[in-house]
């Protein structure tokens, strides 16, 4: 019993998904690329814009809903997952995408992110990670690297930084992926994978803030060096990387990963870690999420993609079951309660 029926699949061009609102991101911002790939992915998947809701918090990335010709809520700082949860529970028929950033999702909204992930609601969460507070002009963010000098940490930040994918895997998200604003094809592919996942999908997107934190992900985007700094995860395949595809990651007997050059000291492809995004245990996915530049190549792609009971579906099932058990609702019976007495007119 939903308020409107599911609308049919449509055939629209990427540009048809854009709204007529003027886009106000800084020129050169990584958000433009992400917006473009979202539109492409939606076009590929035949998404009906009237059946999609983008929900965002506060921050540069959270302006995105205004630029999509779908339904949208630009809410308050950190709370998008909570709004999306209410909307999802009320409306099983809609497609719901949450747009958040590293400050929005992991600082002020960390609690909502945690709980929306562990519940496994059918919601897609895109976290634009630029490792800085952009909209408020350059303060340190929870994903900023230690010792970072910003307007709020002029002598270097002293707090450890949080790794969004480790966070999501730690909360046992059923779908976790990482991609980069400058990799259009990979970004689009990853979004489509997330869209097809049944349940919660969490995607971290490396996004360049060219004003306050330019080239924060240079290791991942620089054409000259990126192949040596990034490893692309593929289900069932060994972790091989490098410009010449001659390096790999293997697990030592003490469970510490190490980078090896294929052929050196007899290291072969058969020694390497094999990626398994379907593993029930989040352990491998977590281990992979801990590989950070410069000690290791940073994985991009799908860390985890498993099927598990979906919260909102379980709620619906419970309602159906209890309706069967308790019978059709009778408001008069409810109001009367277990015991009544009658006062007669004199």
């Amino acid at each position: 019993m939903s308020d409107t029926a599911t609308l049919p699949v449509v055939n629209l061009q990427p540009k048809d998904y854009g709204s007529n609102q003027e886009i106000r991101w800084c020129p050169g911002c990584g958000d433009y690329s992400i917006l473009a790939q979202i539109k492409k992915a939606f076009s590929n998947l035949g998404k009906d814009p009237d059946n999609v809701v983008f929900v965002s918090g506060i921050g540069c990335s959270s302006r995105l809903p205004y630029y999509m010709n779908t339904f949208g809520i630009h809410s308050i700082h950190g709370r998008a997952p909570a709004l999306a949860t209410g909307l999802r529970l009320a409306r099983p028929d809609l497609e719901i995408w949450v747009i958040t950033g590293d400050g929005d999702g992991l600082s002020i909204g960390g609690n909502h992110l945690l709980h929306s992930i562990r519940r496994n609601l059918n919601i897609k969460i895109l976290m634009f990670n630029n490792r800085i507070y952009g909209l408020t002009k350059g303060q340190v963010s929870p994903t900023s690297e230690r010792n970072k000098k910003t307007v709020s940490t002029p002598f270097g930040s002293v707090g450890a930084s949080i790794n969004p994918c480790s966070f999501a895997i730690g909360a046992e998200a059923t779908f976790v992926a990482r991609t980069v604003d400058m990799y259009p094809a990979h970004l689009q592919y990853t979004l489509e994978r997330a869209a097809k996942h049944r349940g919660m999908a969490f995607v971290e997107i490396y996004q360049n803030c060219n004003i306050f934190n330019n080239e924060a992900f240079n290791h991942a985007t620089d054409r000259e060096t990126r192949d040596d700094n990034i490893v692309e995860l593929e289900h069932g395949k060994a972790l091989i990387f490098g410009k010449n595809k001659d390096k790999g990651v293997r697990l030592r007997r003490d469970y510490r990963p190490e980078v090896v050059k294929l052929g050196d000291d007899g290291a072969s492809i058969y020694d390497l870690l094999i990626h398994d995004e379907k593993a029930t245990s989040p352990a491998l996915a977590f281990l992979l999420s801990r590989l950070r530049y410069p000690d290791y190549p940073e994985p991009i792609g799908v860390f985890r993609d498993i099927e598990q009971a979906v919260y909102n579906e379980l709620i619906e099932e419970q309602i159906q079951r209890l309706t069967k058990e308790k019978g059709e609702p009778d408001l008069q019976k409810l109001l009367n309660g277990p015991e009544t007495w009658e006062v007669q007119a004199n």
Partner: protein
Amino acid sequence: MTRLDTQIEQAAAAKNLEDLKSAIVRFAGDSGDGMQVVGTQFTNATALVGNDLATLPDFPAEIRAPAGSLAGVSGFQINFASTEIFTPGDTVQTLVAMNPAALKVNLGDLERGGHLIVNSDAFTPQTIKQAGYDKDPLEGDELAGYHLHKVPMTRLTLDCVKDVGLKHKDAERCKNIFALGLTYWLYERPLAPTLRWLQEKFGKDEKLRQANELALRAGFNYGNTTELFQVHYRILPARQEPGVYRKIRGNDAAAYGLIAAAWQAGKRLFYTGYPITPASDILHELVKHKNFQVKVFQAEDEIAAMCAAIGAAYGGAMAATGTSGPGMALKSEALGLAVMLELPVVIINVQRAGPSTGLPTKTEQADLLQAVGGRHGECPLPILAAQSPSDCFWTAFEAFKIAVRYMTPVIMLSDGYLANGSEPWRVPRVEDLPKIPVAHPTDPEGFRPYSRNPDLARPWALPGTRGLAHRVGGLEKEDLTGRVSYDPVNHERMCRFRAAKIAKVAESIPDQAIYGDDHGDLVLVSWGGTFGSVRTAVERAREAGRSVSHIHLRHLNPMPRNLGTLLRGFRKILVPELNMGQLLMLLRATYLVDAVGIDKMQGRPFTVAELVLKIQQTLEGDH
């Protein structure tokens, strides 16, 4: 005639039976003694007798405070009558004290000459000392002014259940039911409702059911056969309007009000909350009724609950959330968003004594100004307050009605006293409930997300509707189009629209009623859970020939259009509140009247006596 009725008749014949118009009984014991249980059972039996009644459960914040300690005393008071009553009463005629601590804490409220029934087995040197007595209070002169009944309840209970074969500890726990049986005899209550309840509660544990039944009957028979009581009492049914009645608690009534509103709107209810005393029972009640297609969501925190309600409302659900003061504080940022988005959400604040954790299980009404102004920016919204436990139903219902008509969040104020208190309620017939009209636009032609109807409400356009895709958000929106707008003139226009819309609510609420004459020496103006005490005090003053009237406000924002005129009809205005003068401040600021407040912040309702005294003093201040 049933066997029980026969038993009651025989009992009546055996002893002197005295007719009373009303009586007030309080059960008091350790928080683990089951006092709330016996209070509730006494209330159920009394409701079925047809008495009018009002209750005051009063329990500590700790689930199990140290046994025998003063802090751990839990009480349940019930006032029941053959006439209409509005309060649980000031002083009690019968006090049941299950241990020395309960005696110490409650004796001050027992009338001189009242019945004091104590479990004498619980008065040991250790517990006596723990309660702060130097010597056994049952032995000295201290209790000479009362009808003291020393009943060895523990021993009598153990004796009567010994054949059931319970463990000693379980057997002893039946003593509260023994005490209940004794009071049933004393006030001529039927045993049947409690026996039915025992069957339901312990149906799977025959031993416990049997033991409790034996204890109940033993208590009843003890009163009947021993020489302790020379007299017992009968309170005839109250004359009530014809209809079907039930007993109802405030939080349950609020839950049903929400369900009924969704039902009358033909929509699904979405309720979300985070555990908080004394509001959690609304959550607990609603979750039982999933067959009403109610979706209940226990959120990760108060903020999430408020936000989830907004998300659900955007999706087209009848969305509500309930909390208490500290939770309201957390919700306030998102309340600002709800005002900005102009979406219907009902927020119930079951007030408790604050600030901060304060007295979490005790009542207060100090969140009015928070409701009025506790948000950032110009952020008006309608505020309603319930006046009695059953009125929580109508207030919740009306809150939704206003919310969907004007597309606005609405705050409903309840309080701990209403939430846990109970009273008889004439159950409305569903066919008599008003419909709640709701419309969602479907035509893309000319659709403007921030256009306004004559009520100044914007359309409730649902996601999933062909051609109506639009964006809402916390940023200021351009009038009509809903596009983000930084235009200063537009911002002021939108602020004024939002305020004018809430002011317009006054056009659809009834004129303020007044009890008594519409002009005179003195009017008392109250709101919320103080209704009963204030009305009773005003009744008494009027019976004594005083020129006193009573205005009780349900609508606190906007206030009824005729309120200013009414206030100007009186020489003096008294505003009793369980706070330091919050409505008082609003009335003085809004109507420029020289109103005076009566404050109380003791976690308990006003007594009628203290209000009567204040009325006298105010009137005599003329000389």
